[in-house]
């Protein structure tokens, strides 16, 4: 494992805890997260190439030239043209290299159209799963337009698919984030953003809100399951048989400020196919879902 040998360079390793699965960013699942993890390693190694020697030099100079060490003392030395060119040149070379690398990786993992996934998306368009995500105060609504179902606080995708999420918010801004899978991307009212990730392995993950959105923010997790195609189909059937339908009118109730403690899952059948667009248009037209001071005060407290 080359990764392991890279790992030893990380300063946090000093804690001796890196092999633990808790360090989720060290254990990427899909192509996107793996690329992000590689970028982390490359950047750290390159930077340490310069930072470690500097730290070492500071330590050595600091020890060697302490006042009572009787080392060489050159009270006037403050200029050296070659060195001064070098101190500009070395950081310049490093920044140039890392800058190039940074730009390259952006195109590979760009959440709107990741270069890494373009080949699969074009050769196997069937594997693309579209999900419309609406962020409310303080829940996540996932609409599967092609499957005609919707859920609250549960994202289920079949293994091997490429998940394309369209994102918007009813109320305030937020970030969506699934560590090990999906990069953070902003979710904003009246606007549409995109996030894309692949699902190469079965597993259960926790996605959550990353950008503060008010008093219920801490409770905004959603379960993310990567399941087999058969399990996915079964799950779609289960959701489709839900008596609750998600029309725009029914959505108004969902969109009211509410903390879903324990991230309990709900299913809906027959979501309005235009629901996502209607939510975007409504926010642009000035529809808000106000949060009263009284509600803010009661959340997470015993003063219910």
């Amino acid at each position: 494992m080359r990764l392991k040998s890279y790992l030893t360079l990380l300063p946090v390793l000093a804690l001796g805890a890196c092999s633990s699965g808790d360090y989720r960013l060290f254990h990427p699942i899909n192509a996107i997260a793996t690329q992000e993890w590689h970028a982390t390693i490359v950047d750290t190694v390159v930077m340490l190439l310069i930072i470690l020697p500097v730290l070492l030099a500071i330590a050595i100079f600091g020890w060697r030239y302490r006042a009572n060490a009787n080392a060489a003392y050159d009270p006037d030395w403050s200029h050296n043209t070659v060195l001064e060119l070098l101190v500009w040149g070395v950081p310049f070379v490093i920044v140039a290299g890392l800058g190039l690398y940074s730009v390259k990786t952006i195109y590979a993992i760009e959440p709107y159209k990741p270069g890494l996934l373009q080949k699969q998306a074009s050769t196997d368009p069937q594997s693309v799963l579209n999900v419309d995500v609406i962020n409310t105060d303080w829940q996540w609504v996932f609409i599967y337009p092609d499957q005609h179902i919707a859920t609250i606080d549960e994202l289920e995708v079949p293994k091997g698919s490429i998940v394309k999420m369209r994102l918007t918010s009813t109320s305030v801004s937020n970030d969506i984030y699934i560590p090990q899978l999906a990069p953070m991307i902003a979710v904003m009212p009246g606007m549409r953003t995109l996030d894309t990730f692949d699902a190469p392995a079965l597993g259960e993950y926790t996605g959550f809100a990353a950008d503060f959105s008010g008093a219920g923010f801490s409770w905004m997790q959603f379960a993310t399951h990567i399941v087999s195609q058969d399990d996915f189909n079964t799950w779609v059937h289960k959701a489709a048989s839900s008596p609750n339908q998600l029309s725009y009118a029914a959505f108004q109730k969902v969109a009211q400020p509410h903390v879903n403690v324990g991230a309990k899952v709900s299913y809906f059948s027959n979501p309005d196919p235009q629901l996502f667009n209607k939510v975007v248009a409504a926010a642009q037209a000035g529809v808000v879902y106000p949060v009263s001071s009284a509600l803010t005060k009661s959340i997470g407290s015993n003063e219910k």
Partner: protein
Amino acid sequence: MQLQVPGPWSLLLGRLTLDQIPYTNPILQVTFAVAALIGLVIVGAVLYYKKVGYLWREWLTTVDHKKIGVMYIIVGLVMLFRGFADGLLIRTQQVLANGPHAAGYIGATHGFLPPFHFDQVYSAHGTIMILFAATPILTGFQNIVVPLQIGARDMAFPYMNAVSLWLTTAAAVLVMISLFVGDFSQAGWVGLIPLTELPYSPGVGVDYWMWAIQISSVGTTLNAINMIVTIVDMRAPGMTWFRMPVFSWTTLSTNIIGLTAFPVLGVALALLGADRYLGTHFFTAGMGGNLMLYTNLFWIWGHPEVYFLILPTFGVLSEVIPAFSQKPLFGYVTMVAATFAIAGISWLVWLHHFFTMGAGPDINGFFSVATMLVGIPTGVKVFNWMFTLYRGRITYTVPMLWAMFGLFLLLVGGLTGMMLAIPAINYTVHDSVFVIAHFHCMVLMVVCAGFAGVTYWFPKLFGFKLNECWGKAFFWTFAVGTVTVFTAMFALGFEGETRRLDWTFNTAWKPMLVVEEVGMIIYVLSLALFAVMLVVSIRDRNKQKLAADPWETSRTLEWLTPTPIPFYNYAVTPQVNTRDELAWRRKYGMEHTKPDAYEDIHMPSNSGLPVILGALAGIWGFAMIWRIWWLAAISLLGVVLIVIIRSFDKNAGYHLQPAEIEAMERDLSIGAITAEQPDRSHHIITHAEAH
């Protein structure tokens, strides 16, 4: 069009009602009791020792740049303490409220702070630390040191200097009042949009945040003008640009940033205010508003603001490291160039605060590379400090220890900053506590340089050193606390913990949260040691007799003045012959040479108007927050009247007589910063006489 007033409102008191005072909250009860006790002790001491007149004449009405600087630093330290208390609450809440089964205390479901309270605490922590702790402390240093370093008697505009101080203080007071009257903002120190709009923040919290920042930023802008004019116009004869100490250079660059960046913040907040007060739609999601406009405007100020804090810090390191290496700063010219390169680039990188906005790869790529460019001049600075150590004769005094630790934090912050500059990495840690750990490394470098500066320049002002032994104990506990807290926080970032969580839902985070809490306890200890250091130093103040240069290795002009420094700074304006003037005079045995004769010195008179102006600005802010329109109108009118009254003031200062100066130069305690000056009103000259 009518002014928007959410909820009940009365003509007399605006939105203010009795139930806005959270007297039932036990945490606030304790806080109030402690604050009231400290306040009573201070007021009592002032009354008991009959120091009211002294306080008014020598401090509140002063226009002396050193006293103003000291007051800036006191305001900053008080707010630093408040901000630290907030930090302690945040850390304790997060460790207590971990996992679904975490117990709840005093009204909270998990931990002891429900979101309503926690969100105010973290918002206040950020706002206070950046705008009301770090900024005043650094402004204080610039006020104290720059006129001395360039051989001036005062700032270019001493009166305006006092106005800046009192505006900043008024804003800090407003933030403190928000503890006990109403609430503070719950939308982060950045004012997350559209969370700060009325539908989502109907209370007065955002208004407190907004007006406090607005008032203090007027003070900061005025101070920036003052600093730039002082440096451009008031350098002593012979002090050419490239003989100017690096701290003055960094002050110049930082205030150019301040002058150009703060108006943008003012506009961002004013437009938000228009949304909240006048019902406009600048940043609303609907009705043609554009919420990313706010985010862009805020960070167009916000990123330069980061360098506004960091550049003077670099200046302090560039003074302290050469002084205790007994060598000139390596690569002075490249250091100055790097300073201005950083200031320039700081304007081009703001978008890296929202790489995750969904901008295209081209835009993110541009800002990624632009951000990395900052690494070049910063790297240059680190190399130059490193070569300054080379073949030096290093003494590890307390300021030097702080400087070295600051250097370490800068390197860690730089390493992680380069990671965040890469969008591919940023997408995984953008809103995680990894970012928090990164910028805390940076701002703690500011704090380290702050304490380096405090210990370094303290004896110059007050005539006695801070206790070395307790100072070292304070330093080491602080350093250990810092490493503990932020190593754990970096780890938590890699565990995927995001910021601003009232309830830390993942139990896997528990071990590192506990480590952080341990670090916080070490911090508390270090704070206690800081207090001990102050008390011991003040107690032993008469045990030392200090020369003009108490460290004996300082290099720049400010150490040429007597210690403690008299209020007129230089009895006779010095002639500057070289860079590092004092080191040069010492080398040729001239550091004790005194001027042959003294002459009249023209000094500005004290004025009570700035402090009244500050008070009126504070009242105006309070009235605007609570929408008490009549009070707002009266206080604003008062501000305008004071500005006009001042323009009719014929007092052009007074002349110090040579005999007086000679007496003060002989007995340094007569002119010292703590001494009470005799009434000099009979020496006052008017503008008509002056010309």
